[in-house]
């Protein structure tokens, strides 16, 4: 035991990196001059490249891996710290909320794509189904809003269930086409459906939980806090839930089943793994997470419209997964942060973001097909 303890990596490098990253994110979010932001992004990229060249990334990665639980808590603390710094800034908090909701959606896709190998090119559609569900239910029913968020996820999963027969009967390219067709179908359906508001979409009132209205600014002592803080905490809770779920799923025997059927369906079924059943579980569970995120996003934005849930948005979700390294939950979150924050802060590339992501994914596929942060080898024992 003593020797094992001695080999265990120190917590310090990881903690230092986390502190630096937190400070860096605060600096980026706080900067408002385009030149400052450009320099900050350049510096960040340079530091990562240099650290890679000098072999500093390995010990940091070991440090993270050795103290996983501690770092999960520290990461939550870091998020709260960032939110605390920007407690009065509507825009920054909204950006963070968007980031976290997208991260939840990316985690949902990770279950499907990364673990079970079920392709889904309609991520944004299921996000949209969650959002539209929350819009319709808040306007037309008096259900409590937390229940509505839950129902948003359930509806997305149910909509996914319609796609199950074709997805289970086909694989690879063919399953991909089914989801692509669904993405295009969904977009064109909500665009022409008058009940759902057509191209204009629907408006929905702010959220209320136990009589506490989310759209009022908060005053605590002498602090004025933006009303987005409520949404921030809600999204953070959702993200923690999703991340915990995904991480536990990966470690569990269910995750093992997923891995087995992704790597070799025939072999998996020879060992008695119900391929269809686990594919269905992964697909529905993933869509449910995406639906939760979508439902919250609808409430945060206050309106839902078809143009937010296009095929291009689905492709962005897939890009996030690829950039982060398919199946790596932390990678997905880091990639989401990159994909959400960069175009918001660098206004010049806002217009070019789809093109930029497409080119980046092409480069990753050509030169680093495992993604920028490849999924680590499965750990069977807690160290």
């Amino acid at each position: 035991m003593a020797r094992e303890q001695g080999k265990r990596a120190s917590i310090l490098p990881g903690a230092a990196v986390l502190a630096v990253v937190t400070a860096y994110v605060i600096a980026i979010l706080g900067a408002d001059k385009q030149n400052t932001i450009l320099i900050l992004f350049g510096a960040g990229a340079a530091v990562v490249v240099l650290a890679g060249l000098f072999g500093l990334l390995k010990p940091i990665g070991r440090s993270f891996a050795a103290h996983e639980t501690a770092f999960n808590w520290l990461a939550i603390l870091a998020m709260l710290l960032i939110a605390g710094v920007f407690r009065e800034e509507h825009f920054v908090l909204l950006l963070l909320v968007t980031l976290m909701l997208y991260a939840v959606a990316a985690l949902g896709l990770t279950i499907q794509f990364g673990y079970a190998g079920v392709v889904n090119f309609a991520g944004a559609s299921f996000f949209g189904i969650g959002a539209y569900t929350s819009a319709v239910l808040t306007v037309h029913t008096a259900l409590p809003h937390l229940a509505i968020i839950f129902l948003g996820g359930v509806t997305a999963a149910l909509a996914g269930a319609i796609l199950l027969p074709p997805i289970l009967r086909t694989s690879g390219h063919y399953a991909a086409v089914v989801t692509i067709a669904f993405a295009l179908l969904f977009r064109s359906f909500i665009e022409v459906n008058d009940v759902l508001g057509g191209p204009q979409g629907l408006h929905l009132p702010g959220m209320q939980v136990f009589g506490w209205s989310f759209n009022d600014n908060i005053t605590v002592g002498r602090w004025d806090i933006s009303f987005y803080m409520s949404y921030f905490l809600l999204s953070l809770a959702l993200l923690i839930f999703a991340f915990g779920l995904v991480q536990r799923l990966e470690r569990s025997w269910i995750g093992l089943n997923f891995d087995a059927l992704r790597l070799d369906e025939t072999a998996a079924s020879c060992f008695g793994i119900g391929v269809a059943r686990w594919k269905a579980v992964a697909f529905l569970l993933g869509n449910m997470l995406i639906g939760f995120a979508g439902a919250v996003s609808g409430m945060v934005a206050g309106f839902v419209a078809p143009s937010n849930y296009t095929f291009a948005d689905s492709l962005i979700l897939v890009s996030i997964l690829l950039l982060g390294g398919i199946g790596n939950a932390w990678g997905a979150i880091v990639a989401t942060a990159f994909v959400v924050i960069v175009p918001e802060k660098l206004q010049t590339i806002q217009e070019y973001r789809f093109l930029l992501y497409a080119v980046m994914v092409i480069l990753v596929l050509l030169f680093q097909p495992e993604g920028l942060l490849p999924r680590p080898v499965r750990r069977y024992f807690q160290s």
Partner: protein
Amino acid sequence: MDAGLLAQHVMNGLMLGMMYSLVAVGFTLFFGVLDVIKFSHGDVLMVGAFAALAAYTALAGQALSPWLMLLAILAAAVVAMGLLGMAIAQAFVLPLRTAPALNTLLITLMLGTALREAVRLFYPQGANPKPFPALLPKASIDMGQFNLRADNAIMFAAGILSIVALQLFLKHTKLGLAIRAVAQDEETARTMGINFTMVVLITFGIGSALAAFAGVMNGLYYNEINFGMGLLLGVIGFSAAIVGGLGSIYGAILGGFLFAALQTIGAVAVPFASAYKDVFAFGVVILIMTIKPTGLIREKISERV
């Protein structure tokens, strides 16, 4: 419904089917030689249509007769897309041969996005729909409610001609033989001294040239093109190719027309829901994949179920 109106619908369906077939044939060709799905195919079609439009703008100053003009812009689009298709095969598809099939799918999907976005951002006012010049004669023969428009008839004939030419090329030339050999058994073909890379490049060139042809046809038929048109045509063309059984040219053509027929029947049967035309089309795609994932004309070896 009287015969004239019916004939009108049949004509519309045939035109639509011809365009779908041309796209589907491309998918089938690529799948034949390389067993890959090139998702950027629809966007190549769109770029082809824009290339034709750009050629038209460039030549508008010259006083060319409409026929000569049409020939010129068609040639420009076909040649440019043929080259683009080869470049895509060389740079993006061939390097990923050993990678999982999903990576090829992703890279071509992203490439399609890149092409689409590039046209939207960099073509002058590319984000708006563009009027496409009507270069074919506008004469028409009226038969009751049905009028046979000369331009439609010419386009349809040209489409058939191009498919027949492709078929003759594949059946009766040495290069066509090489393509069929690679499609049948790549390794044996290689040992017989066939230049595999060249065959793949030429096939991608031909398929993309056909897409350019379909793109120009689409522009002439609707008199309008936009940067997003490729996505829809690509997905429908791909579904048509699957319905017909990937790898079979006749199957692709059959699938294209079947698809157009379904869409037309859907539009006629539920006229009040014509806004749901695309919803119906994609619903049918999903339905067909559910019922018959192997296609109507089976491949010899089917691995997908």
